[in-house]
């Protein structure tokens, strides 16, 4: 662990740390473009120069390792002048089309020019022209004129995805990023090149021109696209509702978590948020008895449910929980099942087709919280039935009430005719979920759930890591978080468990942590931004 001095401050860093990271540890920012901690050292942008005592001229910090006793200065007049020079070089052929560039507002040419440039432009000759607005894959748009040739995207495709679609072609100031002949940037992680592109060269075809980034709000969250639980930021558009085609969620961006996803996010997760603002969202409780599919208030829907539950023997009730529900939702459901004495409880509904999987981030299990469902004990009680058994007994007219959470059973692994027969043959079918489907259309009672970005809670990923997601936007329409629906029902049934008097998800989580050893000692505060492992 070498000790070195940076700007007069002594820091100790692990062996092999470069001076960009060491400076970070000393609280100093060394501007850079080509360096990325996940990628090999390119040393191309030449922006990260720092002064080192006893070294005659500034050195690039990215390729200089901290050594014992090294004395580094990141803000000498010479370093500042070098940065100004490098900024000028980066910008002489840049089109300066910020007003129509999607990157504006989060562009490191803008940021560093304001911080380290501020020279008067001297370029009076014709700039180099290159291709603009070239779609290079399903998700990525290339503007070669804005590109500063840092090669991060090239190295990403070489070193992270090992797909090698991108290269730098031509030489000198004619150099440009491009696809190798016969390829397209369509690997499963292609969207990451947009994130690591420090400028407006690679923009997101989905997000382009939808909303200016300075209107976005951000919330820390967890992708719900598979059991990996990649940490994400949800970027939402609330200040300009007429932008982004009226959708509130504008985009997802990966959020660093060394243990889960590092810097990355797969494309399926990145673009898998459209359901949140989709027209198919369920926004109001509906009750078939009150007219054909008529909207009703919660004040009428839940008492109706309670009445019907009270009219059933415990074994006449089936509960199909979902691994898309949070730990809090699942815990509230388990407590409710216990209060009712219902043993027919399960979450394992087979998917229509096995999910794809790779050796990087993508998991075959497309649910964010299967592990949480296991750990919270959402399964058949003694003598109770699993998901297949619940549907079979429903088909055999032995259930009076089937409460389905989120599952679109008609599009699941079970034969559609059998599923529909189960629905057909059950007196009361309750569907609780976020979006309409064939089951909600047939249900007697429909309870609208808030999407995960509209509430807060935790998911437990396949590794057993319990991770928080925060509220990014308010629930759509009259939708409620699942745990809240369950707690109101539980309270109306006279259950005394503290879960049913919770007003915040955190209180449900605290009850879970107190009751289930796997979550022992956990609090929202302790989970922080990157989560904690459940004690299995």
């Amino acid at each position: 662990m070498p000790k070195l001095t940076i700007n007069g401050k002594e820091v100790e860093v692990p062996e092999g740390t470069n001076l960009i990271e060491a400076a970070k540890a000393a609280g100093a920012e060394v501007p850079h473009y080509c360096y990325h901690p996940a990628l090999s050292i390119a040393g191309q942008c030449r922006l990260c120069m720092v002064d080192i005592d006893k070294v005659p001229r500034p050195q690039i910090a990215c390729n200089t390792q901290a050594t014992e006793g090294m004395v580094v200065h990141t803000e000498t007049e010479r370093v500042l002048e070098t940065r100004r020079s490098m900024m000028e070089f980066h910008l002489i052929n840049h089109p300066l089309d910020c007003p129509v560039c999607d990157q504006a507002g989060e562009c490191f040419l803008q940021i560093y020019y304001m911080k380290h440039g501020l020279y008067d432009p001297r370029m009076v000759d014709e700039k180099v022209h290159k291709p603009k607005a070239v779609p290079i894959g399903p998700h990525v748009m290339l503007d070669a004129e804005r590109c500063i040739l840092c090669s991060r995207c090239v190295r990403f495709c070489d070193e992270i995805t090992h797909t090698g679609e991108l290269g730098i072609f031509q030489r000198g100031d004619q150099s440009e990023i491009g696809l190798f002949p016969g390829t397209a940037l369509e690997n499963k992680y292609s969207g990451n090149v947009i994130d690591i592109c420090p400028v407006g060269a690679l923009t997101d075809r989905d997000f382009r021109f939808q909303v200016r980034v300075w209107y976005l709000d951000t919330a820390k969250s967890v992708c719900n696209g598979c059991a990996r639980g990649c940490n994400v930021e949800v970027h939402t558009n609330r200040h300009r509702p007429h932008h982004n085609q009226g959708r509130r969620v504008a985009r997802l961006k990966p959020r660093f978590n060394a243990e889960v996803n590092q810097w990355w996010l797969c494309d399926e997760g990145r673009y898998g948020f459209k359901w949140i603002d989709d027209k198919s969202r369920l926004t109001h409780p509906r009750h078939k008895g009150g007219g054909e599919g008529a909207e009703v208030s919660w004040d009428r829907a839940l008492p109706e449910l309670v009445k019907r539950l009270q009219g059933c023997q415990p074994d006449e009730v089936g509960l199909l929980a979902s691994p898309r529900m949070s730990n809090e939702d699942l815990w509230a459901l388990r407590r409710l099942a216990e209060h009712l004495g219902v043993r027919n409880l399960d979450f394992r509904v087979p998917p229509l087709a096995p999910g794809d999987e790779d050796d990087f981030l993508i998991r075959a299990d497309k649910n964010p919280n299967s592990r949480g469902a296991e750990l919270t004990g959402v399964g058949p009680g003694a003598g109770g039935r699993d998901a297949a058994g619940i549907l079979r007994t429903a088909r055999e007219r032995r259930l009076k009430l089937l409460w389905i959470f989120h599952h679109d059973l008609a599009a699941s692994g079970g034969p559609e005719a059998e599923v529909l027969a189960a629905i057909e043959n059950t007196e009361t079918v309750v569907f609780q979920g976020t979006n309409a489907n064939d089951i909600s259309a047939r249900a007697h009672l429909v309870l609208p759930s808030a999407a995960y970005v509209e509430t807060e809670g935790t998911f437990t990923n396949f590794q057993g890591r319990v991770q928080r997601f925060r509220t990014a936007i308010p629930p759509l329409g009259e939708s409620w978080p699942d745990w809240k629906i369950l707690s109101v029902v539980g309270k109306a049934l006279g259950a005394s468990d503290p879960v049913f008097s919770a007003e915040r998800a955190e209180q449900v989580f605290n009850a879970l942590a107190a009751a289930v050893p796997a979550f022992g000692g956990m609090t929202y505060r302790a989970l922080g931004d990157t989560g904690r492992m459940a004690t299995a």
Partner: protein
Amino acid sequence: MAELVLTRNFEVPDAHTIRVYRERGGYQGWEKAKGMEPAAIAEEVKKSNLRGLGGAGFPTGVKWGFIPKGSTAPRYLVVNADEGEPGTFKDRYLMERDPHALIEGMLIAARAIGSHLGFIYIRGEYVQPWRILSAAVKEAYDAGLLGKNIQGTGFDFEIVVHRGAGAYICGEETGLISSLEGKKGWPKVKPPFPAVKGAFGQPTIVNNVETLACLPHIITRGAEWFAGLGTKTQGGTRLYSVSGHVVRPGLVEAPVSVTLRQIIYDHCGGIPGGRALKAVVPGGSSAAILTPDEIDIPMDVDGPKSKGSMIGSAGIIVMDETVSIPDALMVVARFYAHESCGQCTPCRESTGWIYKISHRIVEGKGRKEDLDTILDVARRGAGTTICAFYDGAVGPYISYIEKFRSEFEDLIRSSAHA
């Protein structure tokens, strides 16, 4: 006339064949070296004061010593035969007329550094030298001088001849290695240096053709003899490629103590037509330009340096009074803009920028701030890049303007934009 060393076989018919090469005393250096300890060969080369003749002038024996001691990784000997520096054509002559001198030199170097595989990276445009050299390599294999267990010594050495594809940057040691590895010819970030992690990630020594061609003579005739041919800091003779306005352009071999004036006026017969000398580039296009009052310098590593220039590849370009220096700058700036690999921002962006400015000046659209802009941009970029390419471009940018500023100013003054 001093003794010829490197060019001694150049006028001998069929000297490119192993038969004639041997008749002329060829491969005696190897015969001696194969019985020497590797360390003794390196020591001899150090004592000879042999300095790299490709451009940087680094002491060859010292360079060999940079391979990490005790490393058991395979080591590669790479010959830089890319000879792309404008005004330089010496290696071409060596490979066409005396290719076995290079092969023998490689054998000696390989034994010294413990390499069993050598690559000759030859400039793509050098078709004839490539044909002749390839035939010579085949002859050496057939004669048992290359391959496994050479002459029963237990020493293996193979040579692969690899043709470049026409990029100047592939003459830069690490750009060459990238290209040899099958990648784009981009110079590599240092450290690590090639001697530690070079071609295919293994310790690699890159030497110039002419440098290696000196080795047989050093081993045969001794380090002291070789050192004695030159100056205190550099031994031997070297090949000067002379082009431009001289009566007899071509290749000149002379001890490195020869002066630039002697080369121009004695060896090459002076300036044709009785015209006046205007400027000389002493070491390939990357060397700063010299004025007529700066040519009384020895043409070793130190002489041109004393005038703020460099010996480089010893490609001497002579310009008489008919040459327009702004035109010359534009031509050289176009070359560097075209050849910049584009990897480092300062070089990629400013070589093109400076070419555009120099072109505009020549077109009569110069602005009064242009010269200071070029000088400032050149100075800001100098020393900031991965390789020495940009520093090579800065040599002409700055020296052409500083030494001939009034000529540029006259052009700009007559322009409408001034």
